[in-house]
């Protein structure tokens, strides 16, 4: 099987890349100013030498850097990512607890932006030089250029404060005790604002890219041939133009998908969505290095996985692409 060989090769390379990323991240963090023990002590508002010594010893910060690195790498080999300094909980537990919330948010935003972006882009391409096409492009430009946090805040002001339609923050209604379908509906309601906010920016990019690459594809000879054959314009749009215009969109979608774990810091913060992005931001602020390294690891792993998937999807979308070519 060609695919099997391709995937094995890619996975082998991925392990090497991941290993290098781990070492690189570790060294990068050593360069950052700020001693985790001092920050923990600082947060406590009171400290003495004994307290600092206990903390450093507990987290192995009293060891030379190469010993720390060795311990860290051998830990990862057994899927042990160490303890969070601040929360005193295994890093893996923290990340796994936050992962579903983040994947729900970024996954919804991904599907939403991709689907709506391609539809809007295709519509704009079909309505070139018409006012409706220009309107779509103008909107896309606005969403592309507006800062995410501002859109988020304005959405909260309009839909939560003024209209009262949607909850402003959180993932579910605390204390309501919903289960089953009611819980799913509740989470869905909480999901609308953050997912839409997050989707807008990428949607704008997909729209612009779909339109541009469809317009380019529509100049090709095979489109003229298709027209000459007397095919309906709709069929030409869908089967001949859109399909050929898809490759750059797949590239971009692969990039976006790779960012799904760590790419929603702002949205998660504004909407109090309990995901990985917030965890990462807090870990950075508190110099919670083990936690930070753990999140880096998962983000990197996800980027690699989606790169592989993207390559496979290329082959599905365009059978002309073969291994090695």
């Amino acid at each position, binding site marked *: 099987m060609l695919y099997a060989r391709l995937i094995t090769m890619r996975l082998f390379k991925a392990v090497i890349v991941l290993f290098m990323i781990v070492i690189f991240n570790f060294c990068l963090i050593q360069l950052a*100013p700020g001693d985790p023990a001092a920050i923990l002590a600082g947060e*406590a*508002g009171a400290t003495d030498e004994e307290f600092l010594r206990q903390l450093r010893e507990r987290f192995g910060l009293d060891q030379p850097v190469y010993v720390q690195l060795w311990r860290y790498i051998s830990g990862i080999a057994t899927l042990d990512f160490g303890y969070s300094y601040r929360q005193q909980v295994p890093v893996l537990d923290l990340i796994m607890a936050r992962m579903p919330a983040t994947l729900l948010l970024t996954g919804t935003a991904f599907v939403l932006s991709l689907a709506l972006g391609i539809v809007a882009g295709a519509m704009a391409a079909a309505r070139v030089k018409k006012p409706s096409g220009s309107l779509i492009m103008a909107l896309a430009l606005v969403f592309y250029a507006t800062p995410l946090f501002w859109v988020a805040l304005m959405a909260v002001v309009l839909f939560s404060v003024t209209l009262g339609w949607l909850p402003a923050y*959180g993932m579910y209604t*605390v204390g309501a005790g919903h289960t089953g379908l009611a819980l799913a509906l509740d989470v869905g309601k909480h999901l609308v604002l953050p997912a839409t906010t997050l989707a807008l920016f990428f949607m704008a990019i997909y729209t612009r890219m779909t339109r541009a690459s469809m317009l380019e594809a529509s100049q090709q000879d095979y489109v003229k041939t298709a027209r000459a054959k007397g095919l309906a314009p709709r069929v030409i749009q869908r089967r001949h133009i859109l399909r050929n215009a898809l490759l750059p969109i797949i590239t971009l979608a692969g990039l976006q998908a790779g960012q799904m774990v760590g790419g929603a810091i702002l949205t998660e913060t504004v909407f*109090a969505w309990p995901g990985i992005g917030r965890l990462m931001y807090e870990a950075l602020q508190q*110099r919670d290095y083990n936690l930070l390294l753990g999140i880096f690891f998962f983000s990197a792993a996800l980027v690699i996985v989606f790169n592989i998937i993207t390559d496979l999807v290329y082959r599905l979308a365009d059978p002309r692409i073969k291994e090695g070519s």
Partner: protein
Amino acid sequence: MKTPLAAAIAAAAMFGTTAVIAEEPKSGGTIDTIIQPEPPGLVLGMIQNAPTRTVAGNIYEGLLRYTTELEPQPQLAESWDVSDDGRTWTFHLREGVTWHDGEPFTAEDVVFSADVFHRELNPSARAVLQHIESIEAVDEHTVEFTLSEPFGPFLISFEAGTFTMVPKHIYEGTDFRDNEANNHPIGTGPFKFDNWDRGTVIQLVKNEDYYEEGLPYLDGINWHIIPDGASRAVAYENGTMDVLPYGTVENFDIPRLTEMDNTCVTEAGHEYFSPFAMLWMNNREGPTADKRFRQAVMYAMDREFARDVLWNGLGNVPLSAFGSNARFQNDDLEPYDHDPERARELLDEMGYDDEEVRLLPLPYGETWTRWAEAVQQNLREVGINVTTEATDVGGWNQRLGDWDYDMAFTYLYQYGDPALGISRTYLSSNIERGSPWNNVEGYENERVDELFNEAATAFPDEEREALYREVQEILHEDVPVGWLLELGFPTIYRCDVKDLVTSGVGVNDGFKDAWLDR
């Protein structure tokens, strides 16, 4: 000048004292409030940072509680007495108290908590423990503390956050930090831990077996976790939250929120901590090493302006090193009023040559950034060449710990007694690299050391008072640090939440007495 908010609080305080014709409290209802930032854990005694204290102060208790005048009140100890030499303190514990898991609370728990648990884990308790020779359980409900010498602040150290009572039957013989029970804290307090959905909410429920008859009135408390300041303000505006504790919204949002209907605000409940904002000035090198320069800084700053504009008129401009809530304040000292002319004279006298001075703002949000800008402007007006250098919390800690600054903002708790919260900033024995909370400015004065050390162990209080008055005169002249403001942190709440703040640490243990008039 009083701002409208400050005036409203003052009026409410007066009204509060005249309207104590007690209404009949109603039972039931759940409070929704906010905790910011999310605490790292809830085992008080193991973790003492502000958010942990605020949530866990309702789960755990200390032997004593303190009024807003810092008078000790019975809590887990029913009564206490002291020997004539001030060295032996006996606490009589309340009977019939149980832990949340049903086990009885006894004198053994007190001995274990103080002598074993806190001695190992808790730096602020260690500061008191070094004066204690032995702790013994006389019988099941009596504990005797023997001090090596009288220690002035002894009786004020039993607040829940400092000397939390932890259950011996759960922790004895285990690795305290790895104990499974840390995920489900067990205390004696009015509320029990129920659930913590990290990043979303911490839920406490009523302790049905609480030893004080009828208390608590509330069925539970939901502490929501909302990382963004604007979203926290919205959560109050749209009616979800009943209470906004200190530090949950930016200062510039406060006037807007307090103008809402059914909204009350109070500054009370911080008396024990009495947060004191200061300006570290590096006494070791540069212009700040000169006493006249530091005095000039005090004259140059318009502290009333900072309070009225940046802090909504809340708080108090301090006279000197001892705040207004501190015991033994010497109020005969001449205040450092805003006097730019006097500041310029002092700078001329020392021959200040325009050398650059680096100022680190406190990285705790917008108000502190603006405050640094205001001070910078004040200092430039008298001819001081100031530049501000922004850092994040980690960088700020490190630079202060390494003494790599000229001036820096901070604020410190005073813990009710000069020997706990004030002397630590000025004692030369407290100069040590690596911590931003000790004698960071590097001030050394033998007489000051002597006076502080003597005063800590002098007995009775009249002896202490004389020593502390003298030390304040020296500090007032030397200005080791700048005294900026005794901060007023408002608690914003719906007016139908009653009896919310009833003690000197009311922000942390207030829900015990609170009830909903709905």
